[in-house]
């Protein structure tokens, strides 16, 4: 079965965790204790949490906003829709490199700021801005994709409900909150969960552009796993970290089933 490698990998990450790299002997939960008392790992959890807390609302709100806008009928609407989701096709490495050049000290963003007589920004080389730059670049890749789900959801809303709302004299905002969003619940739950899963795995821009820096401000968990396992040569701690990540992913996914299951019954 093709599932085998992934099962084996799960098993592997569970069973290898108590093994030290040189001599294989049982150390119990030692790795987890080491991990959770390591200030660097706590920092990684903090940065990853902060990243998710920023990027998920940004992308979900942007997807809903774009979905509402692009669902309107205007000349060339279908073309505009294609433009918005076209970046989805660009490989992650391409997106990271293009935006990395754009964020450079002498790059186009600073050129525009300079022309507007605004102060130059350090972008990726500043611990305060690097994570936000990653959010912008990841949103450019991802938002068009999530917008597709919103548009599909919008087209499934029964027209009668809108007609009824119009007859009741409901305005646009009222209709949005009373008819549109409740009807979008299902696709939105999906988008939020899939979005969380996709973003917690963010790796490419970190690996190519910042390598976790400056000052650890972009050290997201996937990059830390990679770095710990291969660069720092600490595979047992890396695998313990994988297990922490898996527990998070399983929790998020089962939450989705909870939310959608309840609605079905």
């Amino acid at each position, binding site marked *: 079965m*093709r*599932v085998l*490698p*992934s*099962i084996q*990998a*799960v098993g*592997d*990450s569970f069973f290898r965790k108590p093994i030290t790299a040189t001599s294989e002997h049982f150390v119990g939960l030692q790795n987890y204790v080491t991990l959770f008392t390591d200030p660097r790992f706590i920092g990684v959890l903090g940065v990853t949490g902060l990243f998710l807390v920023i990027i998920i609302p940004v992308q979900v709100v942007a997807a809903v906003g774009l979905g509402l806008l692009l669902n*309107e*009928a205007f000349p060339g609407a279908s*073309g*505009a*829709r*294609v*433009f*918005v*989701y*076209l970046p989805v*096709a*660009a*490989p*992650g*490495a*391409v*997106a*990271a*490199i*293009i*935006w*990395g050049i*754009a964020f450079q000290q002498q*790059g186009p963003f*600073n*050129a525009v700021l*300079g*022309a507007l007589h605004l102060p130059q920004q350090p972008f990726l080389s500043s611990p305060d801005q690097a994570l936000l730059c990653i959010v912008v670049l990841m949103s450019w890749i991802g938002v*068009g994709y999530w917008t*597709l*789900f919103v*548009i*599909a*959801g919008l087209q499934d*809303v029964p*027209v009668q409900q*809108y007609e009824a709302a119009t007859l009741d004299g409901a305005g*646009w905002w009222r*209709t949005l909150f009373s*008819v549109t969003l409740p009807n979008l619940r299902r*696709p939105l*739950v*999906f988008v939020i969960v899939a979005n969380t*899963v996709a973003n917690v*795995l963010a790796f490419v821009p970190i*690996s190519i552009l910042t390598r976790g820096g400056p000052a650890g401000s972009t050290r997201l968990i*996937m990059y830390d796993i990679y770095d710990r396992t291969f660069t720092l040569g600490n595979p047992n701690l890396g*695998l313990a970290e*994988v297990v922490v990540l*898996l527990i998070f*992913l399983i929790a998020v996914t089962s939450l989705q089933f909870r939310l959608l299951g309840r609605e079905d019954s």
Partner: protein
Amino acid sequence: MSRLSNAIGTTRPRRVAVAIAGWIVAVAFMLPLAWMLFGSFRTETDLFTSQYPLTPWILLPRTFTLSNYTDLLGGGFSLSVWNSIFVTAITVVVGVVVNAMAAFAFTLSRGRGATLLFGFVVLCFLIPFDALAVPLADLFKDWNLWNSYAGLILPGIANGFVIFALRQFFLGIPGELSEAARIDGLSSWGIFWRIYLPLSKPALIAAGFTLFLFQWGAYLWPLLIGTAPDKMLGPIALATLSSQTQVHWGEIFAGAVLLTIVPMVLLLFFQRHFTGSLSTSGSKG
């Protein structure tokens, strides 16, 4: 026609505003791609002098040259593009057949065991591949698959999402068809090959495209499985190019265009199938 209360463009000025906003957003999303495309045809000096400080030539080239492409493809980069094409092509062809066979098996066998197994397959694939890439890379090392095409291709083939989507599609094909075919003496294999596959072209195209995007854009796995120069894939080669001490922007832009143009053309071509399969999978959770 009177507008419903969910529409923004209710009056003429509002409709104009909606159209303008829609196009501004669309152009904003396209801008980085356009900048990359134009940049790939510019000389190094043109690139540097027109980017900063701001000039009217920031986007549009003053010069036109193909030398970025010829220099790039004369170097080691072309091998990595060929590797990417080879690895992706095998993944798509083998992957569509393998996933379709799995989906077909799950469609036909409705026993309790099969349902359980199917649930199990879907559950396993709910855990995203990248989360398991590091431990899986360790396994592949033990199996001597590092720096091999097999090592690069194998994880991209079976895809739970694709199996699930194909099964949904197969379930929509009337069972009477296969029953009739069976009475006429067709084997399960024959039913799959002669009835299900020809009827499922749009779903198979969407499946192939999903596999394509996944494999073509993959970065973490090819980085983990080994980066021997002769097995390097396009995205890794591009990242290597941009981390060199002497950076040639023009060549990087050209490499980025080469790696983007293929999926983009395919996306435009198969747009309907792709978005169709996405939207149904989204609304059905």
